């Protein structure tokens, strides 16, 4: 039931995008407001994952939406509107961050949680999580974007690959390398995982 409702809402969104694009291309610029309203949230969250700076994420989202407005005629309609928009936004975010990088520290210098796993409280756990997320920004550029887009697209490799305009195999290889670098930087994650696995087995 809920899946039907979800599919219906996605279909409505797709139709609304198509209708708004047609209206904009016919000369009704105000129809772009519908596209902005539907896509500002996803693009803001994507931009946030690229820079983890709220103000900058809003600026980058604004820039991506304005570029989408300028380039609306270039959408070929072979792929979905969302694929085109995410790929365009990824290009904008990439070039913005090339001009002014978000983080300049190498991954070896990224902050390391000071609390031992045994002492982990809710607060410490949240801190570890935030430091791991920030460490993603310290990854080498080619691995960073694969991680950002893979998790933004809810762990869908093909969606991440489409957004990056790369073969899935390349994205998978980069993800594996990025995960290895992160696990090397945060070995306590492996220990915690081993403890969780053991607890699951015992249960």
């Amino acid at each position: 039931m809920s899946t039907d409702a979800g599919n219906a809402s996605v279909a409505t969104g797709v139709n609304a995008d198509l209708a708004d694009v047609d209206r904009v291309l016919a000369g009704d610029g105000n129809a772009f407001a519908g596209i902005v309203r539907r896509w500002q949230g996803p693009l803001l969250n994507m931009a946030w994952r690229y820079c983890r700076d709220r103000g900058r994420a809003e600026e980058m989202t604004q820039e991506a939406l304005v570029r989408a407005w300028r380039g609306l005629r270039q959408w070929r309609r072979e792929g979905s509107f969302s694929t085109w928009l995410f790929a365009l936004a990824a290009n904008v975010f990439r070039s913005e961050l090339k001009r002014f990088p978000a983080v300049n520290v190498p991954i070896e210098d990224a902050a390391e949680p000071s609390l031992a796993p045994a002492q982990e409280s809710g607060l410490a756990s949240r801190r570890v999580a935030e430091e791991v997320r920030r460490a993603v920004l310290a990854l080498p550029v080619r691995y960073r974007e694969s991680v950002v887009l893979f998790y933004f697209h809810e762990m869908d490799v093909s969606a991440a690959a489409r957004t990056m305009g790369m073969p899935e195999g390349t994205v998978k290889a980069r993800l594996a390398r990025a995960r290895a670098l992160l696990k090397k930087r945060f070995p306590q994650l492996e220990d915690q995982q081993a403890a969780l696995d053991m607890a699951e087995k015992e249960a």
Partner: protein
Amino acid sequence: MMEPVKMDKLDRILASEEELLPSSGLAASVMDRVRGEMDAPEPIPFPWKRVLPGMLIAAAGLIWCVVEMVRMAVAALLNFNLEHLQLPGSAMRSLASAGWVLASLGVSLVSWLLARRLIGRGGLV
């Protein structure tokens, strides 16, 4: 039915981001910029009709210059005789030294490129 993806701790951390809500002014700022671009006057088209004849004449002149230079170079090359070329001993020694300097620069460049590539593969840059 799809099998649930096995997530480890790293996956759980990176997949569980809190969702940000756009600020109230974001959509308005985007639409302000869009309307600003809509209201901007059309750019003045480039006057190709006026420029084209001048460009064609300039291109023809350039081509004529290149043809003349090539023709003169070929004529000079045909009249060139190696027997007339005599370099003093010191000049020959300088040339040999320059060759060694170039070779060492080449080796340095290759080793630098190789080191960069190896570091890049290691994910250090």
